[in-house]
């Protein structure tokens, strides 16, 4: 028999009081991997090689014990330039590599992640301060699923698409590896080259990902990686016109900054702040709800964009839940994140630790909240009661494991509480009542609903100021495919030029009705159409509309800021009842609108002829209008959503929802079709439940104005359609600046050789820049008519639908049967 083991004396002690000891994950394999890379100094990864460039470095440390883990290069302008150039070069061949080959390589990546799972987990965990259990169970497992999903995505894509080109992917420290792979996989498989910029706090797993790419046979240069601890890097890369698409995860303020930097041409995909809230109803399984709170609020130590920080509890179960919650929190362990028995590790960001402490103390000292803290962590899990809703903790996104607990009385009130936020990522609903859950899912203005389950970084869509990124499915793939209507050229402008342009854009031009015209051939008084009524412009000014031969024809309102304000208010108040109408009812109204327009055919054909079209052309245009109205009337009750696959037992519903208030700025149609274009964008938007403010062709709004009468006779509710005329740029300015407008569609005019004039470039730059304040969506469309040889262009109409809707994911797990 062997000698007495020295630890045996301990056995009796543990036997008497069952206790745990630290069980640390080994990091020896990781350490030797780091050593192998130039003794722990990682240069930029360009063209398949780590560059040894003698650059200054920054360090990353294990957040638990501050031990040095590795050093990374601080890349400068020259290196960034080199990396982008490598992307641009490789994109040419990679985009032509057959899809099957690209998929095979992504498949290899999935395989290789599986083969090196352990080292990848310890790499991600040790450098991020997150527990290795969480990283393994939630992140790396999902990394594998994501890679496999996109490795088999060809069936989702039509043949012959064009990739966006070069994609810049910025990682975030809350789930660095997963958030990179969520974009990398769909970008690669659709033929884009990628520049990866990991967050300065957590670059280690990104480098390991580079090794996995190489090992999986990805050609050199298709993925490049640069590191820097200087935040200027965002501007340097995003403002580079060679980067066609920017994927950014992180703070909303950084994303807003990026929007003011990028060229109007650059596509942006944001996954931003907006922590998840949870609602517990009295029909909930309370103990399970409490477990979800633990998982959700400690997700990534409470620093994840989607971790849970707000808890709404129905008043009649408030104390019951709180007691369970406190008991459960008292069982939590904190400490070394590499210890398998710990529930919470370390915040990685020193600033977050300071903010966390400060915010909590303000909350208690200035707002009289009550905090209860658990474990001896320096950022302990904290339950905050008596929260003032307009206090800092609620309004600003603080990272850390805290939970604000707020009671409510009724289901209706809970919906209002959830919606009363500028963010729109997700909400968890706890209830066993299916009717309740379905209705609340429908009413909350968030991208993702988690029914009786935990918010995670999968099957997620965000909205409002939480960004517009969609993690999952076809929608995600489409973000990396070029849209054939995207193609326009803008000149590169430096920062000062951009700011100057933005500042002077849209200042009112002198009203064009002066000198007062005489002999108008149409004496009818045209007014703006706002809230279902004809209204004089607030400016009390008019502009002159002339016929193509220069003969003055009529006066229309020359509107300004206040008219836009009124129109947006009316559209906003009409929106709620419009989108909640049954789709059948919407389609009935649109069909009726078409019917009434048909009965006035002659009047409209005559009006179109007046503005220079032949009888045949005018009839054709009117016919197109009628067809497009019928098309969207028919689509109303068909484009409502679908089911997506989920690894959970249950369903992942993808519901198609309207955006809200859409502003449409029509272009100038010298060769006709101004009525058709007006109608197709307008009807496309409202058929999906949006309300609209539309600015007709500034030179030829007359036929559009005549549509009022048709709306009025078609049961169209007031405020769904608002028509305002005036100077295109001036009105664009106020529409874009209005925070309530969810999306701006700007139809830009091109000259004869399809180039954008300086004025129109100014407009696009202004709209992109200004959209940053509320993170509104923007869509830039060339103002030439999109028709196919036999009439309507289905592909383009579909694009209008895509731009009229946003999706909401509802995670709906099921299950009741566990035995006989």
């Amino acid at each position, binding site marked *: *028999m*062997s000698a*007495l*083991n020295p*630890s*045996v*004396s*301990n*056995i*009796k*002690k*543990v*036997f008497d*009081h*069952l*206790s*745990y*000891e630290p*069980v640390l994950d080994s990091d020896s394999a990781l350490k030797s991997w780091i050593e192998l890379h130039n003794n722990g100094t990682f240069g930029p990864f360009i063209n398949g090689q780590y560059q040894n460039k003698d650059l200054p470095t920054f360090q990353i440390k294990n957040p638990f014990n501050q031990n040095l883990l590795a050093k990374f290069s601080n890349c400068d302008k020259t290196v960034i330039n080199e990396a982008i150039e490598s992307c641009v070069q490789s994109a040419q061949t990679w985009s032509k590599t057959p899809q099957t080959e690209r998929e095979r390589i992504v498949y290899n990546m999935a395989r290789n992640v599986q083969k090196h799972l352990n080292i990848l987990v310890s790499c991600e965990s040790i450098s991020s301060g997150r527990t290795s*259990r969480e990283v393994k*169970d939630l992140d790396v497992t999902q990394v594998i699923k994501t890679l496999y999903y996109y490795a088999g995505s060809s069936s989702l894509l039509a043949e012959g698409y064009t990739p966006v080109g070069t994609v810049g992917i910025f990682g975030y420290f809350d789930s660095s590896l997963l958030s990179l792979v969520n974009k990398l996989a769909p970008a690669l498989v659709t033929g884009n080259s990628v520049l990866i910029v990991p967050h300065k706090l957590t670059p280690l797993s990104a480098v390991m990902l580079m090794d996995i790419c190489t090992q999986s046979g990805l050609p050199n240069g298709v993925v490049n990686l640069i590191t820097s601890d200087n935040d200027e890097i965002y501007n340097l890369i995003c403002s580079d016109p060679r980067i066609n698409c920017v994927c950014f995860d992180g703070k909303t303020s950084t994303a807003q900054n990026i929007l003011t930097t990028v060229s109007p041409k650059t596509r942006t995909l944001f996954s931003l702040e907006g922590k998840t809230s949870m609602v517990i109803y009295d*029909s*909930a*399984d*309370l*103990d*399970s*709800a409490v*477990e*979800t709170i633990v998982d959700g609020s400690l997700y990534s130590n409470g620093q994840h964009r989607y971790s849970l920080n707000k808890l709404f509890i129905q008043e009649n179960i408030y104390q019951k839940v709180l*007691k369970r919650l406190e008991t459960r929190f008292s*069982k939590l362990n904190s400490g070394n994140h590499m210890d*398998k*028995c710990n*529930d919470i590790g370390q915040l990685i960001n020193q600033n977050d630790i300071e903010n966390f402490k400060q915010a909590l103390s303000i909350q208690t000292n200035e707002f009289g909240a009550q905090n209860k803290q658990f474990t001896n962590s320096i950022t302990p899990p904290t339950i905050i009661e008596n929260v003032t809703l307009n206090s800092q903790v609620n309004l600003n996104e603080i990272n850390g494991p805290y939970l604000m607990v707020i009671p409510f009385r009724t289901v209706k009130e809970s919906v209002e509480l959830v919606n009363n936020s500028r963010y729109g990522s997700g909400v968890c609903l*706890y*209830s*066993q009542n299916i009717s309740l859950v379905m209705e609340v899912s429908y009413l909350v203005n968030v991208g993702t609903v988690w029914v*009786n*389950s*935990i918010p995670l970084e999968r099957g997620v869509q965000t909205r409002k100021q939480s960004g517009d990124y969609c993690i999952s499915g076809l929608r995600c793939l489409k973000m990396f495919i070029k849209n054939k209507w995207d193609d326009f050229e803008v000149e590169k402008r430096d920062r000062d030029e951009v700011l100057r342009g933005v500042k002077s854009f849209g200042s009112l031009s002198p009203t064009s009705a002066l000198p007062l015209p005489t002999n108008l051939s149409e004496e009818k008084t045209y007014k703006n159409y706002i809230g279902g009524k004809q209204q004089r412009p607030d400016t009390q000014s008019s502009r002159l509309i002339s016929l193509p031969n220069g003969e003055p024809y009529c006066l229309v309102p020359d509107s300004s800021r206040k008219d836009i304000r009124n129109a947006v208010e009316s559209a906003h108040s009409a929106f709620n009842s419009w989108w909640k109408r049954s789709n059948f009812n919407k389609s009935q109204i649109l069909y009726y609108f078409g019917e009434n327009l048909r009965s006035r055919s002659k009047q409209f054909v005559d009006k179109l002829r007046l503005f220079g079209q032949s009888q045949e052309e005018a009839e054709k245009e009117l016919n197109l209008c009628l067809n497009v109205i019928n098309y969207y009337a028919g689509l109303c009750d068909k484009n409502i959503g679908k089911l997506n696959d989920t690894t*959970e*037992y*249950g369903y992942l519903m993808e519901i198609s929802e309207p955006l809200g208030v859409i502003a449409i700025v029509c272009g100038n149609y010298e060769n006709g079709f101004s009525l058709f274009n007006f109608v197709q964008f307008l009807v496309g938007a409202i058929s999906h439940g949006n309300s609209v403010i539309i600015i007709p062709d500034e030179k030829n709004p007359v036929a559009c104005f005549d549509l009022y009468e048709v709306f009025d006779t078609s049961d169209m509710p007031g405020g769904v359609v608002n028509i305002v005329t005036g100077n295109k740029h001036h009105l664009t300015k106020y529409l874009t600046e209005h925070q309530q407008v969810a999306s701006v569609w700007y139809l830009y005019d091109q000259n004869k050789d399809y180039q954008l004039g300086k004025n129109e470039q100014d407009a696009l730059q202004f709209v992109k820049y200004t959209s940053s304040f509320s993170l509104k969506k923007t869509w830039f469309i060339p103002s030439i008519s999109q028709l196919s040889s036999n009439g309507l262009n289905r592909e383009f109409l579909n694009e209008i639908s895509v731009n009229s809707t946003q999706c909401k994911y509802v995670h709906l*797990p*099921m*299950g*009741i*049967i*566990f*035995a*006989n």
Partner: protein
Amino acid sequence: MESHNPGIEFDESYVNNVNLNLTAIKKRAAEFATRRTVKKDYQVAWLLRAVTCIDLTTLAGDDTPSNVQKLCFKAANPIRADLLKQIGFNPKELTCGAVCVYPSRVADAYGTLSSFKMNDKIPVAAVATGFPSGQYHLETRLKEIKLAVADGASEIDIVINRTAALQGDWKLLFDELKQMKESCGKAHMKAILAVGELGSLENVYKASMVAMMAGSDFIKTSTGKEGVNATLVNALVMVRALRDYYYATGYKVGFKPAGGIRTAKDACVWLSLMKEELDEEWTTNKFFRLGASALLGDIERQVYHYVTGRYAAANELP
């Protein structure tokens, strides 16, 4: 032994408005094995604790005095004495929680334990009340309890009336259990819910509550004869019922999972479940029992490996 749960009057509010979510419960149940873990000396200590909680069981038609006798010997000497000595344990002090047999074998078990003076250290538990189905007249079910107690059983593992549970007649179930408790006298009553036959987790919860209101000292998952026996999912529902009852009345009731618990690793997970969802006192054999037969062998193999550094051959641990 004093009963630690006198029970309360039947209160319908305990079985109304029960909301349970299977998916979320499954997820939590799966986490006990990953959120906490014990290794080496800690693991051995936990396993020895598990040994003291085992109701070493034989419930077969071919049970005879001789195999019951062997069972009793094993319960008194669960781990090879030389192994225990090497890790600082007195072999005399480590025994199983109880032996569990059919009513007609109680006399054999009690006799054997008496023969080496362990009858006051290791209780004899008898299954009763028409085990396993319970489909018998109440009169004979109650009579079984009394006869087993008379033969020396100090714990009675009764089965509940599943017909009443499935029909939602909780008052009937309560009344029957009350009478059974009375028949037990000083013996502890362990109520077997037979969760695999209750149809829904809500019923598992409600049956747990009714059994506790009627004064059960333990609630037990299953007979080991149903299609679904002790799983962490139904255990979690029962354990949360224990907690709710404790919050409401201040009485702690014990928990006994039975059926399908075979590995040493399982034993640690079950202990961890009790510690994390309840508290440490709930991990002692006063409040926690594992109904098992093969489990002990696996634990002994783990202890052998810890002490010697080698895995045992089958014939080294008789």
